[in-house]
């Protein structure tokens, strides 16, 4: 039998999660309630967090912190997070965005989880609280590699630095249905320019592997280069490094591999989709 427990503090929730193997955190419900409705999740405890800190946005300064319970709708309502609006708007329709949370998106299986792709390109840290101790920040890439095993810890927030120039941050979701569809892929790129040359580029993909991944081949190709045709061609040539896309109802592996360099090239060149 399935029960629900509401936790008034983050510590309480973290304590229950680490002590009860059958406890599942429920954020907006868009992932967990599907399993409840279809009978895959029939035993254990759904854990709700009512702590206001869980839904807090700290976006005033250079360092941004989003509570794990912050919804896509809340991000879209924040002017300070305008550079993240394209990524937040890529998640579902308006109703889903009012429910789907930043923390939940970290656990969405491919081809979902487009917002996490943006966070990966922003070099985000995930604050994880295990038991009643205090939170520990983990690089997102590390967190994703271990996320299947991280069910017993509570994600309380994500942190990242605001891009010095918001125009250096790019996000695109490629889907077949307009205006909304499930990802064929998503691409996020943070391309800071120093003296007209790309410095410390971070590029990430969604739906090109079982979890969002960094595009290291692209990052290397762009480093120290100005964003001209030659650099874009080199980036496209290295676009598929590390990709392990799936064949699913949305696209085949072959198709994803074929079109990724095309969409990456358009993003880098500032061309429309």
């Amino acid at each position, binding site marked *: 039998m*399935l*029960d629900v427990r509401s936790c008034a503090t983050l510590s309480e929730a973290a304590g229950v999660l680490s002590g009860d193997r059958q406890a599942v955190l429920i954020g907006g419900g868009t992932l967990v309630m*599907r399993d409840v409705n279809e009978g895959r999740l029939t035993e254990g405890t759904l854990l*709700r967090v009512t702590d206001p800190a869980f839904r807090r946005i700290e976006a005033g300064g250079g360092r941004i912190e989003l509570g794990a319970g912050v919804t896509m709708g809340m991000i879209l309502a924040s002017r300070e997070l305008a550079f993240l609006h394209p990524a937040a708007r890529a998640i*579902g*329709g308006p109703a*889903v965005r*009012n*429910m789907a949370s930043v923390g939940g998106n970290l656990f969405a299986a491919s081809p979902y989880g487009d917002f996490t792709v943006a966070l990966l390109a922003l070099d985000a840290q995930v604050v994880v609280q295990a038991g009643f101790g205090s939170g520990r920040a983990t690089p997102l890439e590390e967190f994703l590699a271990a996320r299947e095993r991280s069910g017993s810890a509570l994600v309380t927030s994500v942190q990242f630095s605001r891009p010095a120039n918001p125009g250096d941050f790019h996000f695109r979701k490629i889907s077949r249905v307009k205006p*909304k569809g499930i990802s064929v892929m998503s691409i996020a790129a943070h391309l800071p320019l120093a003296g007209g040359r790309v410095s410390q580029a971070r590029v990430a993909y969604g739906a090109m592997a079982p979890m969002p991944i960094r595009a290291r081949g692209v990052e290397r190709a762009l480093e120290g280069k100005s964003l001209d045709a030659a650099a874009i061609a080199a980036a496209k040539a290295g676009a598929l490094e590390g990709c392990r896309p799936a064949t699913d109802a949305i696209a085949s592996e072959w198709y994803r591999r074929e079109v990724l360099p095309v969409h990456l090239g358009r993003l880098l060149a500032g061309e429309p989709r």
Partner: protein
Amino acid sequence: MAKIPVQFRLNGTDRAAFVNAPETLLNTLRRSLGDFAPKYGCGQGACGVCTVLIDGEPHLSCLTLSIACEGRQVETASGMADGPDLHPLQAQFMEHFAAQCGFCTPGMLTSARALLDKNPNPTRDEVIEAISGNICRCTGYEPIVTAILAAAGSPGLRRA
């Protein structure tokens, strides 16, 4: 397992129900409170036929726990008409044949209402974005978009 009491305002009226802990708002509305306007279509957040407004914002009632709605304002398509007077969206849906089987209509109306309540004069793209989480399988989106645009700016749109 003991049932849990929940109270919220449904279409302007205080309502109460005893629910099972993991019960969805959709089931409470339909089975306990007799409001059949929101429908079950997928249980996954993909189709939008269960869309309701919670504190004025569209939510999917099939993915929302009833106990999370304690003390909140819930509105469904059932509450849009004022007695025999239809909401402008309802009137324009009729006028423009924006319903065929009618199953997606309550959700469409609710999403459209959420848009127009905030943005009485939306662009066509904003209308399309507003109903992008609502699947219609037979009417086709064109008459629905037309009806919403026709209702936009109608007198009486912002009626409580």
